[in-house]
């Protein structure tokens, strides 16, 4: 009995860690730019593919693969922000959010289909990152899940350090709080926007890479998990990294346990109902600071 619960618990927080990273990226973009990035899932998917090909072609070391994936997607994010989103901000001025949201939708369509054309429709996965299974007191734990957990925590710590202790992080926070004031203080807002977008989608890429040993990926995996990213943001609050972490863990645990007890179908329905209730009652989420 206890073994089952612990097993599920571990599974839940590993899954939750991935959701947290995915949602954190979304939350960051939303917190700084006020933009709902509907293409977040596509970046998760692309990040997963990059890591997959890196592991299969270059090196079996997962950390390298994750790093390469992050860097490439980070660069892609910056390019997309500069080419597309910046243009929308210029043409639509203050009311750029709706067109911006729609632009991300267009980006999603294109990236997903390019992935299908480039990589084919079949599922891919990686057998495992580290082929170890630990046995502690009769309870079996795959090392991969522990790795995911530890890695996720490290990323979040790094993120917090970056946002609060570095100059760039302070600039990002400044833009998030008050864009015009930040502009007046000499911060290049466009640059911050681009970096933030890149970082946000880079986090999705990390999440995607971490999925590989657990699930299989294909070009639609981003869309299928997109609701999870938004759920994390809604639960944890827009703009809050800690909130995203907690929201993600809650989501992961809920999914693991409710799927076990009442089956995955009903579980999701109740969960989405919960999300809608949260949207109605406390739209800014548990830790949110920004009103819509």
């Amino acid at each position, binding site marked *: 009995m206890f073994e*089952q619960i612990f097993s599920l618990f571990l599974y839940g927080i590993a899954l939750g860690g991935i959701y947290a990273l995915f949602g954190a990226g979304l939350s960051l973009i939303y917190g700084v730019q006020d933009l709902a990035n509907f293409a977040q899932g596509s970046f998760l998917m692309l990040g997963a593919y990059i890591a997959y090909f890196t592991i299969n072609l270059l090196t079996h070391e997962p950390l390298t693969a994750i790093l390469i994936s992050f860097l490439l997607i980070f660069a892609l994010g910056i390019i997309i922000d500069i080419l597309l989103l910046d243009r929308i901000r210029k043409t639509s001025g203050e009311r750029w959010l709706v067109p911006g949201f729609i632009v991300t939708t267009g980006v999603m369509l294109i990236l997903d289909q390019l992935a299908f054309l480039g990589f084919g429709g079949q599922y*891919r996965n990686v057998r*495992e990152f580290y082929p170890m299974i630990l046995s502690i007191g009769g309870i079996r734990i795959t090392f991969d899940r522990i790795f995911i957990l530890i890695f996720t925590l490290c990323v979040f710590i790094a993120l917090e350090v970056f946002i609060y202790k570095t100059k760039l992080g302070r600039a990002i926070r400044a833009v998030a709080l008050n864009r015009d004031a930040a502009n007046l203080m000499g911060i290049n807002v466009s640059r911050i926007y681009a970096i933030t977008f890149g970082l946000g989608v880079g986090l999705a890429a990390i999440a995607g890479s971490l999925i590989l040993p657990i699930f299989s990926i294909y070009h639609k995996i981003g869309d299928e998990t997109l609701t999870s990213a938004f759920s994390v943001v809604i639960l944890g609050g827009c703009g809050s990294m800690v909130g995203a972490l907690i929201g993600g863990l809650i989501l992961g645990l809920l999914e693991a346990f409710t799927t076990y007890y009442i089956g995955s179908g009903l579980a999701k329905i109740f969960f989405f109902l919960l999300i809608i209730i949260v949207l109605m009652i406390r739209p800014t989420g548990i830790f949110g600071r920004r009103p819509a």
Partner: protein
Amino acid sequence: MFKKGLSKVYIAIVAIVVIVAVVGSVAYYIWFQKPRVEIVRIGVVAPLSGPVAAQGKYLKQGFELAAEDLNAKGGILGRKIELVFGDDQTKPDVAISLIERLITVDKVDFICGGTSSSTYLPTMDVIAKYNVIVLLSIPASSSFDVRIKENPEKYKNIFLQDLNDTVWGSFEILWLSNTIKEGKWHPRNMKVALIAEDTDWGRGVCDTWNEMIRKHGFEVVAYEVVDYGQVDFYSVLTKIKQYNPAIIKAELTGVASGVALVKQVKELGINALLFPGYSAEVHEFEELAGAYADYAIYYGYPVPKKWVDQLLKRFPDSDPTAAFWGYDSLIILADAIEKAGSFDTDKVREALLKYPHKGLWGTYVFDPQTHRAIWGEEYVTPGAVEFYQGKRYFIWPERLKEGEWTYPYHDFIQPPS
């Protein structure tokens, strides 16, 4: 806010745009009608995206190889074969539009292909509207048989090359009961857990198991249903683990699902004889699962080695167990057309039913009532296959046997190293 008025120019542009779009489609459609005398056009439907895209790709390659072989010998009745492919995305509405388009626009003479029963069961009524023969290569749900039997005139043009889910399920149980009877295995208990994919095929096989395994003295302790394409079995397996079954029978079609299942079974330390179902068919299964796939049992079909070499020479990354379905489809069709001496639908249909057709797998004879291939030693029959150390080999029946069945885990399980 509102448009104050619609200028003439504006309306004109709008009207022209609409006309051009419609006329453009018509023109393209008409232009597509090439003179057809020298070719026979065969539409092939397959899942080229989605959970079974791997199997779909190999199926397509099997068709291409068969077309090349047949064309090298002069084609069918002197006409060269032209294949038109379409992606059904494992979705019924896509399959329906695809079939209608192949028939009405591409004007194919015959249609072959298909993997998922749930995708093609809904297409039966659409096929009934036209007079084109559709030979379904892989769909195996017995729901087809039932519907064709009840409505033979309506569904007369639908043929099923594969054995049905009752046969596949019974076959696995046959092997199992044989193995136990011959004293080769003493299972630690008589408990079975079933995991069915929520498709007509998945449920069909597991329902067969559910019914028949009890007759052999087993108890079904769990019957879980999972989504098509599911890759997360952690919760389901955790639940099953507490019942401690000696056998887990899963019927999953997507190779990723099968891989995930065998991995998670071993990760959770479940000691059970594992049947992953159709998902084990393609080589990605043991490639991605590695040692996790060891000792899994699967219903295979023998394919002549010479043909396998030929296939791999032409398509080095292909998989014979998936490609051969496509190859045999064209062989069967070509044989029927030759025997009928004509491309006329009614004559070919008669020939399909009347004659046996020799393919790679065996001899195909279609049951006149269900239009499905008949199971038998002298017709087509599967073999039991085991995975071990990255390879698969037949273990039963005798005439196919490549090795002895090994199953070392009786009491506890060692993690794969």
